[in-house]
């Protein structure tokens, strides 16, 4: 399945376990604010659990996106960038909320999101101050996630909340994955916690 999400629009789709979803920036300064909810409609992407279990303040290749209940939702199997913002949340507009509503979700489901393609720099000062990096996302950048269980994926292409530039379109490509093992030779290195989440998920529901 291939689709182009125009700038400043929202999109959602089910992604079956084992398939990959690739997002590609179709212009500089693209941003793809992304929420993920498990097919059980309750187990959501949990950014704090994802970050603390992998000792990271950004999303990058080799990280497993984890759920509220400690399962793997998706693995970042490839990424042109080593930094996708996950500290700022989705833009405070109605785009994602409207898309959630199509699936029967509401304000209670507005969890932390990943802002793919965007980078917000952290300063090593007393408050860990944040500044948007305006030169991060480039046309053609892409990121690929493998669904580790049946998912609902929600994407908004609104501009990053700290960006002053125009929003950009994003291409989506969902396809069947050939990868079957949690960690493949030549693929990104996974932390032990990530492997544990993947193994548990495969044993239980994938």
């Amino acid at each position, binding site marked *: 399945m291939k689709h182009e999400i125009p700038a400043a629009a929202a999109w959602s789709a089910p992604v079956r376990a084992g398939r990959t979803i690739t997002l590609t920036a179709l212009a500089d300064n693209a941003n793809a604010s992304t929420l993920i909810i498990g097919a059980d409609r309750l187990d959501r992407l949990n950014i704090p659990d994802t970050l603390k279990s992998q000792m990271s*303040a950004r999303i990058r290749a080799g990280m497993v996106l984890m759920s509220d209940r400690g399962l793997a939702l998706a693995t970042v199997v490839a990424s042109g960038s*080593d930094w996708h913002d996950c500290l700022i949340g989705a833009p405070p507009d109605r785009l994602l909320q409207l898309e959630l509503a199509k699936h029967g979700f509401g304000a209670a489901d507005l969890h932390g999101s990943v802002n793919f393609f965007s980078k917000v720099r952290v300063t090593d000062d007393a408050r860990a101050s944040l500044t948007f990096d305006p030169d991060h996302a480039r046309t053609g950048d892409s990121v690929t996630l493998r669904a580790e269980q049946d998912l609902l994926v929600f994407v908004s292409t609104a501009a990053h909340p700290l960006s002053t530039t125009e929003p950009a379109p994003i291409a989506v490509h969902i396809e069947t994955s050939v990868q079957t093992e949690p960690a493949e030779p030549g693929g990104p290195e996974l932390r032990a916690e990530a492997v544990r989440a993947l193994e548990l998920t495969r044993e239980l529901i994938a």
Partner: protein
Amino acid sequence: MSLDTVVEPGDGALLTVPANGRLRIVDLHGNQAVDTLFYDSHDIDNRYSAFDTIRAQRAVYLTTGSRLLSTSGDELAVITDDTCGRHDTVGGACSQESNVIRYGVHTRHQHACRQTFLTYGARAGIGQRQLTHNVNFFMNVPVTSVGDLRFDDGLSAPGRYVELTASRDLLVLISNCPQVNNPCNGWNPTPVQLLGWW
């Protein structure tokens, strides 16, 4: 004074704090994490949003002056006094399931904050779907310029406190963290005191 109570580690509280009420959390023994969620008491879907709060202040750590915002962008409370210096809102709450991922299956049945949240939240209709990313008062989670995050020994000390002023009528859901597998509680969870004026 409207409230003066001690919460043991592993226990929690569900407080009703009216607009303009002041809630003080005292770290009695130092280095204790106090996992806290805020809800508009008239609409629990209008709840604390860690990432909207971080975006608005353009900084990760919370301290005096931090406005705690909701998913609708409403100001729920403001930190009006802080003798600790900074607080976390990126680390989330421990759960039995995330403990398994981080520390192994032997931790599956240790008590965890989200058990406490669900226990106390049920009285107000706060269930799994209403739980969100919380504040960890007194907890030290450095986020660095190279994009790393870790749980460090606390910056707090016995008697240090944080005080919040409610911007509207609130439900405040608290779990005094029982975690023993990382330094968030100095490896030794201890009681905290809650003081309220309204």
